[in-house]
């Protein structure tokens, strides 16, 4: 009897590869979605990005605690 492509081993291998491929795709999609969600929320991440940007610090605009707590940053 020939060891044909239709053997159960091949079916299992194909199923495993397809399953893993779909799992990885889902993982990539999830990480992408997470990135979008976190970037959309934004928070204060650019307010202290290497150089202090006063225009991105809401505390500085209102004269609140955030601006007083901001460290002096020089280039």
């Amino acid at each position, binding site marked *: 009897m020939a060891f044909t492509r239709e053997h159960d081993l091949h079916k299992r291998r194909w199923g495993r590869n397809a399953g893993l491929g779909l799992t990885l795709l889902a993982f990539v999609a999830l990480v992408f979605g*997470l990135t979008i969600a976190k970037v959309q929320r934004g928070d204060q991440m650019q307010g202290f990005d290497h150089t202090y940007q006063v225009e991105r610090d809401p505390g500085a605009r209102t004269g609140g605690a955030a601006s007083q707590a901001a460290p002096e940053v020089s280039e």
Partner: protein
Amino acid sequence: MSDIQADITRQTRTGEAGFGDYVQLLKPRVMSLVVFTAMVGLLVAPVQLHPVETLAAVIFIALGGGASGALNMWWDADIDRVMKRTANRPIPSGAVASGEALGLGLALSGISVVMLGLATNWLAGGLLAFTIFFYAVIYTIWLKRSTPQNIVIGGAAGAFPPMIGWVAATGSFSLESVLMFALIFMWTPPHFWALALFMNSDYSKAKVPMLTVTHGRRVTRAHILVYTIALIPVALGAAFTSIGGPVYLGVALVLNTLFLIGAWRIWRRPEDAAEADKYAVEKRFFGLSLAYLFGHFAAFLVEATPFADSFAAWIGWGF
């Protein structure tokens, strides 16, 4: 010829597992409970995450639960082979090699903890890591084969998911998260001891020191009743916190009454009567225990909806 083919198939069966065999390693039925309770923990918390973050948190908590399931199957392959209930699991059946299960378990543990930490916060990631450690090492490797109180302490591992969900959303612990933990923790012993009553021969063969094996069925029946009585104040107490309310209290009253009646019947029952009807009462109690847990957590979810707030205001609920 067919002998040769059969031989090839047998020799190459290991390492050529199907995708479903790996899914089975993650104990999907247990995972469904983890998904549900973790999701409730996330949704009833006072801080709401972005829907994608919520989805990611549930997935990674479930993945962590699956990882600990794979590690459990790796360690317990010898006793799974002996027990009828577990003989068809991927390792004893020869579908997956033992080392593959260990590798999968460790890899998924790392991925799930790191991804949950990145997606939500590191307290939640750390709690998930502790849960995996607790289930794989404290319960599976240490307690399961050494003490009849194995499932009492080991049950904590199954109780953590709603607490992880809560911590993922809020970044801290609270009374509510402890009560959700305690509800599952106290529910686990009666649930598993009811199973052990009608699966006793399996545990005896595998020499797992379940209470039924070491202390007998009479003592196990008494333990089911005692733990059920101890569970009731935990279940009802949650009604008077921020995650409870009148709807939850109503559901809890009904379910706890039914659960207590079931435990009382199990306690009163002589062994010969149980054998005569093939443990019908014990099997019914086991089924009820599943509905019990689902009902309480579903009620928590209902309490998180605006409908429940309106209902509470309408009846003048003061808590």
